């Protein structure tokens, strides 16, 4: 280990000699620091590859007037239930399809299929988010109608999915009233990246301490353009505003 830079190149693996000079055991303090390495300018975004594939996905969607929505939240906020109820409500009116992201299992895909929409499940294994390439590969397994809605249900995680553009038209962040109303302050990146916030499970408000007004205020501090709908996917309360919003996205 080199003491000056912490690199793990062992000193004795480097030899310095002129042409014709035999390999000698005589140690030299020199190693690769003394040799002039070559500098290569890069200046490229770390996620440039992902962003390129996301742009490709976005072109595909826009050419077919498909509205892709990236649904993000903590685990258990009710994303899949919202999708089930949305599909049941808009079936026959707007063509819809779903890409389901989970670390494991086909469980969510089976629920969506039962609700009546074509679905592809992406299992990310240990991965904590969907990326643009996963969505691109899923798209190759789907036949999407023109002027349709594509819901991309991301892995339940409020941190990592914020960084990865999938090519969606908008991110929809979902928070349920069984969580803390301070989530927008704790996980600002996701609320900053979203265009719409669904506050779900409002039928439980009488039983929990969740303060809706404060949640909205916190979320607006992070993103002053964020729109909100308060809904209960279970009872259907407030769902019509969300459904109307979806109808308006299809032009």
């Amino acid at each position, binding site marked *: 280990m080199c003491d000056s830079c912490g690199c793990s190149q062992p000193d004795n693996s480097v030899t310095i000699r002129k042409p014709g000079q035999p390999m000698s055991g005589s140690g030299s303090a020199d190693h690769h620091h003394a040799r002039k390495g070559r500098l290569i*300018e890069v200046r490229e975004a770390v996620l440039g590859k992902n962003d390129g594939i996301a742009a490709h996905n976005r072109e595909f969607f826009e050419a077919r007037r498909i509205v892709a929505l990236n649904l993000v939240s903590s685990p258990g906020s009710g994303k899949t239930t919202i999708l089930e109820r949305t599909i049941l409500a808009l079936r026959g009116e707007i063509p819809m399809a779903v890409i389901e992201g989970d670390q494991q299992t086909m469980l969510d895909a089976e629920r969506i299929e039962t609700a009546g929409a074509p679905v592809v499940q992406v299992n990310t294994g240990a991965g904590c988010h969907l990326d643009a390439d996963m969505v691109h590969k899923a798209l190759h397994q789907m036949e999407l109608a023109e002027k349709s809605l594509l819901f991309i249900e991301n892995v339940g995680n409020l941190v990592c999915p914020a960084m990865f553009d999938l090519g969606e038209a908008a991110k929809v962040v979902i928070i349920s009233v069984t969580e803390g109303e301070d989530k927008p302050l704790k996980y600002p990146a996701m609320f900053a990246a979203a265009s719409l916030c669904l506050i779900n499970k409002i039928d439980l408000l009488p039983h929990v301490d969740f303060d809706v007004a404060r949640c909205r205020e916190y979320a607006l501090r992070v993103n002053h353009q964020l729109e909100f709908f308060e809904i209960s996917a279970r009872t259907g309360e407030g769902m019509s505003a969300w459904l109307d919003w979806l109808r308006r996205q299809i032009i």
Partner: protein
Amino acid sequence: MQLQVMHEMSLAINIVELVSAKAQAAGGQRITSVELEAGKLSGVMVEALVFCFEAAARNTLAEGAFLEIREIEGRGNCLACGHSFIVDSLLGQCPQCDGYAVEIVQGRELKVLSLIVDEE
């Protein structure tokens, strides 16, 4: 594999792929250091990224390379009063008018600036 529950692992893999491709295209045999620009609002934990980079670089041209991270301050412009100030989170509050309507203008960068290769 458990490392992948951190997005820093994905980022590290992306960095290693990017710099390996650049080094290879330039005929470099081994990458000795990578210079990265990381905004303080980019969502990256520097310590986690360094840890993940070391793991992701194994058995690649970047194995053992030193990851030099240049952090960039977050900067926001207040949309209400126009004041420009340093922010340390996406929850920037204007120190002049206390407003929260702040446009983040700097600090989300995440870029590989350069690398150094050995050619032999």
